[in-house]
């Protein structure tokens, strides 16, 4: 087991490394985004790039080395030229910077010359807030609905729940959020039509959570409900449950002590994986509702062509995805000792 865990984690790091390397190189192949802003801010940006080893500073024109990015004349009449280094050289320096100094670079457009890590960390709390609330609502509700549907299998209750789940799981979340903004925001005017700022009154801010949380939860409630129903239906048909009933347990006891516990084995890991996923947020929902989280940061970074921010945002998304995958796989083994992950035949 330990060997398997170590293997999985190592593989995740190898994957992350390869993905980030590819991302870095592909990003560097894109046209260089020159920083906007004042001359002093630009000079500060290029100085930082020189110290990170991505840009070469020279006092004279050099031919055939790379794109000339910027030049300025300083107070003592010396001209500074900034050239882009070859991409593989930049890649080498990037590896050194990340591994030795944990320096991921600075933002060029979004907030000039601010460390990317700081930008991400200011955006993260909002994303986590929204997602945690969504998980807290969707997990119990989804599981409860699933249990209810399974216990009333093939009865009207089950049909209604299953049909609703089928419909809602098919409707994309951005359609749901648009619809909610349209009806509850613009027509009924009971909820804010976009994310209230931090200085808005408390009740407005609380109301501001409703639309994004509902549209985020909708999909996961349906997912959990469907999953729980399928698992529980299977367990309810099993022989050991029949045995439990013949032993004289009431239906309630049999379901609570035997069926649910076993049905939870595949459900719990996906809940754990989702808890890791709260960090990633939904890009589209955050963009549409104007939530200043790391999902909408991705959108902002793409449209503003702020590649350093985009790079780190992507790294974060990938890392979260990998972590969730590992947790999903490993927790199966922990929850049900019969499942030995990675075991040879």
């Amino acid at each position, binding site marked *: 087991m330990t060997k398997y865990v170590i293997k999985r984690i190592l*593989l*995740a790091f*190898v*994957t992350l490394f*390869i*993905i980030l390397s*590819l*991302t870095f190189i*592909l*990003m560097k*192949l*894109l046209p260089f985004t020159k920083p906007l802003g004042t001359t002093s801010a630009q000079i500060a940006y290029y100085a930082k790039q020189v110290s990170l080893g991505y840009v070469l500073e020279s006092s004279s024109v050099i031919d055939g080395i790379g794109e000339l990015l910027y030049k300025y004349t300083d107070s003592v009449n010396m001209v500074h030229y900034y050239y882009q280094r070859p991409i593989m050289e930049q890649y080498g320096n990037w590896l050194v910077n990340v591994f030795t100094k944990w320096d991921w670079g600075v933002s060029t457009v979004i907030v000039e010359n601010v460390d990317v890590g700081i930008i991400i960390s200011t955006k993260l709390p909002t994303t986590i807030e929204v997602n945690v609330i969504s998980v807290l609502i969707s997990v119990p509700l989804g599981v409860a609905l699933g249990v209810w549907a399974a216990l009333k299998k093939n009865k009207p209750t089950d049909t209604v729940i*299953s049909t609703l*789940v*089928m*419909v809602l*799981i*098919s*409707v*994309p979340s*951005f*359609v749901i959020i*648009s*619809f909610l*903004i*349209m009806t509850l*925001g*613009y027509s009924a005017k009971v909820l*804010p*039509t976009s994310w*209230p*700022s931090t*200085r*808005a*009154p408390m*009740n*407005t801010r609380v109301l501001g959570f409703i639309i994004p949380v509902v549209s985020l939860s909708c999909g996961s409630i349906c997912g959990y409900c*469907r999953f729980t*129903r*399928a698992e529980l*239906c*299977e367990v309810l048909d099993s022989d050991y449950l029949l045995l439990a009933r013949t032993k004289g347990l009431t239906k309630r006891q049999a379901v609570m002590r035997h069926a649910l516990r076993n049905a939870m084995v595949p459900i719990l890991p996906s809940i754990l994986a989702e808890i890791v996923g709260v960090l990633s947020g939904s*890009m*589209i929902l955050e*963009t*549409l509702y104007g939530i200043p989280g790391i999902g909408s940061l*991705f*959108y902002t970074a*793409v*449209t503003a062509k702020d590649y350093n921010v*985009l790079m780190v945002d*992507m790294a974060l*998304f*990938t890392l979260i*995805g*990998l972590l969730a*995958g590992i947790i999903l796989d490993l927790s199966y083994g922990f929850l049900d000792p019969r499942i030995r992950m990675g075991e040879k035949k």
Partner: protein
Amino acid sequence: MANEETIKYSYTDSANIHHDAVLNKDMFKFNQADKTIHDVKLNGKPTTFARDALKRFSKNKSSIVATIILGIMVVLALLLPVCISYDTNTVHADETFLEPKLFSAGTGFWDGCKTYSDQTYDPSTSLPTGSFDANAIVKGSLTTYEGTTNKANKYASGGYYRIGDSSTSGTLTSPTFTYDSTKQYVLNYDMEVALEPEDYDDSAYGINLTYTDASSISQTIKVLADSTKYGEQTISLNAIIDGASVSGVSDFSIQYFTPSNENNLGTVYLKKSLLTEAGTTLSAVSFTDANAMVLGGTWSGVGTLDSLYGASQTSCSFRYDTYEAAYGKKDMTIGASILDTYIANGYMTYDFDVGITSFKILSDKCPITQVYSQKVTSGLGVVVKEIVCQVQYYRYLGYTSMPIHLLGTDNTGKDLLKYLCEGTRNSLGLGIIIFLITFSFGLIFGAIEGYFGGAVDMAMERLVDILGNIPWIIVVTLCVLNLGNSFGVFILAMSLTGWIGTSSLTRTQFYRFKRREYVLASRSLGASDNRLIFKHILPNSIGTIVTSAVLIIPSVIFDEAAVSYLGLGLKGTASLGVILSNNQVYLGSYNFLLLIPSLVMALLMISFNLFGNGLRDAFNPSLKGAD
């Protein structure tokens, strides 16, 4: 022997009476002793796997409905763009934002009319103010009521002036007045906060007295700084001005402002400001009617007409026929060159030398219905001939009758129905192409992995591990940023990692079937790998693989829409995602533009999922009901 021929059997019945039964061999006869038994031809028809699946599929009602809906949508998406003649490639500036129309105007439902409310009412013309066409207002739909407005206009009164707003600090400065130190000056004002629920109730404001001193430098005396006293307030100014020991100047003005302090910035509202000099109101530097103050223009600030809040006015609501407004009769000026084409087409006659009496309509295709006057001007050696006339605008645009857009038009005047069908067609096309690519590649990849196993499998599985862990959004983002957002790039980007699902499933299926006895039997008979894969293993596993791979199509449509929302969508090609993301900004103003494409998207997704479930139940009956 007797006991061979006779079997004696005795028993006692329930009433304790003894019975004997004697059975002789003669009593038994061979039924078919002289017949040879052959195999009887089966009465039922033999069925194939596919036919059996189809039978099961046709019993699933919801899947059948979904398939029919899907079929209708596909047919419509292919047919309608050909049938509808409206142009969706260029911008039609005159035909933007037409509402969906099926019935004639005034029906109240789906009639191409838009309901306007809270519009300023002009009692002199009995019409709403603004650029509304009087002919297009649906007769009898106009109702007036006492309402409020946030835009200063001459029909409104009262209200509040907004000083600053949630993002910028603001000031409002009165006209100047002359200060006479022998008289008493009292400032009486009414400041309010948080009139709207979204407002911050911790906002502050300040009041300054400004004047230009003897050496022409602007000076400021603070009356209040960062005050949060709201409601009606009275301040005596004498002590403040005297305390500042001002001499030799006279031009004072009162300045209200919101502090530019980051944490203390919001919307505060000034209802009135009265300055009294020895008990007499200085009307030039006072106002009690914010609407009149904004219109008067003697007070200076950063605000515009929109700085007004909650002024009372007679508002009106009405239904507005957008088709009449866009295509109805309009007065316009038409140049000689256009007239010449009309004359050449035989629509009308006109002679500039004779004048407007020479105008005669010859055909009902003629756009011009009435000529008011003609203008002949010459300058720089060029003679410009024009007529001012009334035009039936749809004819002017080249239509023979008033166009009807079933689902309305968007911000560029494109017919939404046609554009939506084109978008659906392209989205479906994208989905099907990507499905074909990823399915065939995934099938081959997974088959090789699963069939050969061992080191080949190990090596290929590592590739899958790495590729499968890259979030698709990152692949698409990188591809689009590097290669541009064309149809081909999308296919490439979505195919790059899209095949992994199919390949994993194929691999599992091959592992499941390759050790089966029938494969072994075939192998012992000397069957080649090719034959084993394509004749034995694949046909057994294809059902499961296809049914799950078919769901690639809706997921591609969904992903494409998601990417469009992130601003990386297709350029120059309509698709559901492009339409949805373009129309997102009209949420709240033209809801139908977002609502209709959303419904199409939702319907497409639901139908695809139900269809997929039906397929799975049909091909894999053991999974039935396990959603």
